């Protein structure tokens, strides 16, 4: 009763983002002990030969499997929660988890509307009995603090009015901060931080365009990975930011955080193109859910 593709199928079932539940049922429900043994010996990634004569499951892989199986559950919770609670919890988690997660804080502070960000701040009060800004300020000591606290405190004007002369002068200020600062970290450049944290998005997008024309390069071109780059991208070119995050999730050596980001982006963004290679890397119920979400936003876009 050996199923010839058992080992390959098993490997495939666990290899995507999400788990292919149907495939696993097909393989395992019909497996007898002998077949299971051959599955185990054929999967050195999961099982190693123990000196006492059995194929032992790799404990570290269990963690990976947990994440995989939980992906659907987490996406459901994320999708069901009120956006304010969702964003407040994402921020709180990011603060706790540390510097590698600060991009989540930037993402929420910069890609939500002014009122959505405000809602997240209110929800944070209710959920955690403190304000986002005080928790950020307490837990983050380094230079990132100034920018992050300022971004999260913003209540940006949302109208279209943009003053060209201010755009020009502020593009110059950012140029100086990013290029001529020498030893100085641009994050310490107070005027640069003020501009990014207080100006409206239309203003910053105009600034981005002007900078491009004036200095023959983009604002982010020379920047290293980090919250400054994330900030500028989220404010000025959010689609590029989200595409970058999604593509990082399907890279060869993508870590769990990068993969988890996929749910966050697909669930929270109502628009934006999702490349096919992303869709193809998904598995199981999780895949059905993500494709469903993507499809319904395409419908909304077509209807509008």
């Amino acid at each position: 009763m050996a199923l010839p593709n058992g080992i390959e199928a098993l490997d495939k079932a666990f290899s995507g983002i999400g788990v292919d539940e149907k495939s696993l049922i097909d393989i395992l429900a019909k497996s007898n002990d002998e077949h299971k043994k051959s599955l185990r010996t054929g999967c050195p990634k999961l099982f190693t030969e123990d000196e006492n004569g059995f194929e032992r499951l790799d404990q570290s892989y269990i963690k990976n499997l947990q994440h995989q199986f939980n992906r659907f559950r987490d996406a459901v919770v994320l999708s069901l929660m009120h956006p304010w609670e969702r964003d407040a919890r994402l921020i709180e988690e990011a603060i706790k988890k540390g510097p590698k997660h600060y991009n989540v804080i930037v993402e929420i502070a910069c890609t939500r509307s002014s009122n959505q960000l405000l809602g997240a701040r209110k929800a944070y009060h209710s959920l955690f009995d403190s304000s986002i800004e005080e928790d950020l300020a307490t837990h983050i000591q380094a230079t990132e603090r100034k920018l992050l606290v300022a971004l999260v405190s913003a209540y940006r004007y949302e109208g279209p009015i943009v003053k060209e002369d201010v755009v020009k002068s502020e593009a110059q200020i950012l140029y100086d901060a990013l290029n001529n600062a020498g030893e100085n970290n641009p994050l310490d450049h107070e005027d640069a931080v003020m501009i990014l944290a207080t100006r409206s998005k239309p203003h910053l997008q105009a600034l981005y365009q002007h900078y491009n024309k004036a200095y023959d390069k983009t604002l982010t071109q020379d920047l290293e990975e980090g919250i400054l780059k994330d900030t500028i991208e989220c404010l000025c070119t959010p689609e590029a930011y989200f595409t970058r995050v999604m593509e990082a999730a399907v890279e060869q050596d993508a870590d769990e955080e990068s993969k988890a980001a996929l749910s966050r982006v697909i669930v929270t963004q109502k628009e934006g193109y999702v490349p096919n290679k992303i869709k193809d890397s998904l598995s199981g119920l999780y895949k059905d859910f993500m494709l469903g979400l993507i499809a319904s936003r395409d419908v909304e876009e077509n209807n509008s």
Partner: protein
Amino acid sequence: MATLTVPSAVPSASEDCEQLRKAFSGWGTNENLIIDILGHRNAEQRNLIRKAYGEAYGEDLLKALNKELTSDFERLVMLWTLDPAERDAYLANEATKRWTSSNQVLMEIACTRSANQLLHARQAYHARFKKSLEEDVAHHTTGDFRKLLLPLVTAYRYEGDEVNMSLAKTEAKLLHEKISDKAYSDDDVVRVLGTRSKAQINATLNHYKNEYGKDIIEDLEADSEDDFLALLRSTVKCLVYPEKYFEEVLRSAINKRGTDEGALTRVVSTRAEFDLKIIADEYQRRNSVPLTRAIGKDTRGDYEKMLLVLAGHDEA
């Protein structure tokens, strides 16, 4: 507690509008009528009146007031007629333009309003000025003042009573260290004052006093010429005992040679519907004379009348 009094039977907004229109028409202006009506209406009622006036006569009530009234009286009535959020937005915007005491006004609005009131002011700012409050504050203040004011105007403080006592201890110690080193605009000083809830700050400052034997205000009096230190002291007062802060502003405005009408108008118009009663009690306690009497002695005419009405003084 508010000092504003509203009659138990309030005329409809359209009736009020008719009366106001009458007050404007003909020779001169019937200031008493204006004071009588607007001086006894709460924010919601005033908003309805403005709306009704616009619909009935095709003109913004505020424009009409501006045409008919003058000087200190006009400013007081204008500020009073606005609802609290618009008023705060107006005052804040004005403060980013002028020179003296502008930082103080920004700090006062940021620190004495509740989290939601400050929020509403920021929303009103968008609507009226087509920009955010923070971008104007960032653009028009510099150095240490900007460093302190930006977090203050953008804060959305937690408003619960929960207090973390060990945190209060740690932060009291931190503040004491920084102050002893004269690092008044240090990141941590700004962080504590700019982000903590008022209850938490209160606990921290109580601990400061218990532990170091002095009120933090005393330790911030090192240099009487230092404007930043003065702002820092006022910030602390606004956050933990605003009625004392306002009493000082009023006392100084009234005692000043010639009276500081700007400050007097601002405090009365912004607090009449909130806590002017508490401020007045504090004033009486400190100066042994009722606030209304001091105002009466120091001001005249319609300006005086409107101030007194807003301060709860009912003429017989």
